[in-house]
């Protein structure tokens, strides 16, 4: 395919400049999102498999969480007081692996082994990889685990928060609603549930496959304090996370309105990119778009 994977790591990006720095300005985080999207595409292209569009839709959420919100880093990962992030939509693992590499949990070069024979970088989150809290991949599991972890914090009088990211299509899994009942019952205001509301799932629009709306009403009825945010808007994400807890004694739920395939014009809001791997031509075009975005951002700075 004419690609030399390691060469692509050489692209100048915000990653090299800002790694490990938690207090970042918005522009830096925006540059990071561009760099993350590049890396996501690179590792999916390199491995020949991956969940492209879903990783791109949640990139900004993970960026803000790991670079602005969570008190998690490679050195404190065994600390019982660390915040927890559990990715229930495990298939978007490429975004998570990329952000954790940037946070210094392992080298970015290690991601070249994604999905390869004997690699620890499996196509869904695994605790074999430093920085991953829970093995996920089967949908409808993350919320219950997050609820249990949040109950433990309450019992132990610890102040950490538990964040979990769910796909919108995933909400058809009944276990998510079982877990929601428990979250409200135990008044888990230390639990932050984020819905990656990109409105698409593998078959098509969520509303055509199995209607979710009125989603806010459902979550409110289950006892959450619900907020909406543009899930691809860095300043808006920063602002919404800073408002947690939204209401004392209520679990927090953020409906993050995102665009599946965000950042790449021909992937955006398109069902076929759920787990499609770009051709050489598509890949080159995508990288070109991201480089242009990077140039524009730097010019703005």
């Amino acid at each position: 395919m004419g690609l030399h994977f390691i060469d692509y790591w050489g692209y100048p990006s915000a990653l090299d400049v800002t790694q490990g720095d938690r207090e970042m300005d918005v522009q830096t985080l925006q540059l990071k999102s561009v760099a993350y999207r590049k890396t996501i595409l690179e590792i999916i292209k390199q491995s020949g498999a991956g969940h492209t569009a879903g990783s791109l839709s949640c990139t900004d959420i993970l960026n803000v969480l790991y670079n602005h919100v969570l008190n998690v880093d490679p050195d404190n990962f065994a600390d019982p007081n660390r915040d927890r992030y559990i990715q229930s939509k495990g298939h978007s693992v490429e975004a998570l692996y990329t952000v954790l590499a940037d946070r210094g949990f392992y080298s970015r070069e290690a991601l070249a082994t994604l999905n390869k024979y004997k690699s620890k970088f499996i196509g869904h989150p695994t605790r074999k990889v430093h920085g991953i809290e829970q093995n996920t991949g089967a949908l409808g599991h993350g919320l219950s685990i997050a609820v249990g972890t949040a109950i433990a914090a309450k019992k132990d009088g610890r102040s950490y928060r538990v964040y979990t990211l769910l796909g919108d299509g995933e909400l058809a899994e009944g276990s998510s609603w079982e877990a929601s009942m428990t979250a409200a019952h135990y008044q888990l205001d230390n639990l932050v549930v984020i819905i990656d509301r990109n409105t698409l799932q593998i078959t098509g629009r969520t509303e055509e496959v199995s209607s979710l709306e009125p989603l806010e009403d459902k979550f409110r009825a289950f006892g959450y304090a619900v907020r909406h945010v543009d899930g691809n808007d860095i300043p808006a994400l920063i602002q919404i996370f800073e408002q947690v807890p939204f209401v004392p004694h209520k679990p927090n739920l953020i409906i993050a309105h995102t665009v599946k395939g965000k950042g790449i014009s021909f992937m955006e809001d398109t069902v076929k990119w759920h787990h499609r791997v770009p051709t050489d031509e598509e890949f080159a075009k995508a990288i070109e778009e991201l480089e242009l975005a990077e140039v524009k951002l730097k010019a703005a700075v």
Partner: protein
Amino acid sequence: MELGKPNQDIFATTLLDLAQNDPTILVVTSDSRGSGKLVPFGQMLPNQIVEVGIAEQNLVGVSAGLASTGKKVFAVSPACFLTTRALEQIKNDVAYSNNPVRIIGISAGVSYGALGSTHHSLHDFAALRTINNIDILAPADNFETRQAVLAAMHHPRPLYFRFGKRPVYDLHAPDTIFQIGKAIRLREGRDVTFIASGETVARAMLAALHLEEAGITCRVLSMHTLKPFDSEAVIQAARETHAIITVEEHSVFGGLGEACASILMQRGLVVPFKIVGIPDEDTVTGSQSEIFDHYGISAEGLATTARTLLQVEQSS
């Protein structure tokens, strides 16, 4: 043999004793504290019980999250629901993620008797044996139950226990050594070995007594651990006795019997062999005891099976 208490009563009282001195012990229930004899636990240690309502998938997921923070978590629910509805959570959130939850299947096997197949767990050994990183125990009596709970406190991996709801006979001397993964020899004999698990061990013991009156001596093994499996005990039985009969409160497919058969075949050991359990059919209506009797898990039934096997051996 004297009649003891139901194993799940012993589980509950043992756990309460331990939990009073260890606040990291948590029980998670799905509206199942009554069946699990955990009402006193909830009354005495309300901060150490987490109720999730009738939601077994959530029960196991929540337990996994709790266990990930270092709690010693016992997820208690009827075995029939826990190991089917929540099987994916057991596989992924507990076993694969290595969150060392102790999964407690109460009213297991055909304990619920006439309530029917919805309430029977005759598949749990088979389902869980194929899942990596979860050990499986089926204690036979009150002694084994108590020892198993004590052993679970320091067990490094996820565990599944199954307990019945009927009183069981005491089979062991108090000084018996209990070790997860090691069968206990309850009785020695040369002719037949009964390898039994859980609440069928007492039936095997009764059969052994019955056969001894006719001059047929029996070894009886309590195979309380299905995984890790004590292969050596099975191999010894094949080498030192003339026939092997496995007995389980489980489908004849995928459980204790087939585990033993697999070991014998792969070692090239051929002995007269019979798997006694619940056959692949619509289970007969009745109490646990009536169902056992119906399928030959009785002193008379097992004795007949033993005689038949020995006759086959003599005629071959």
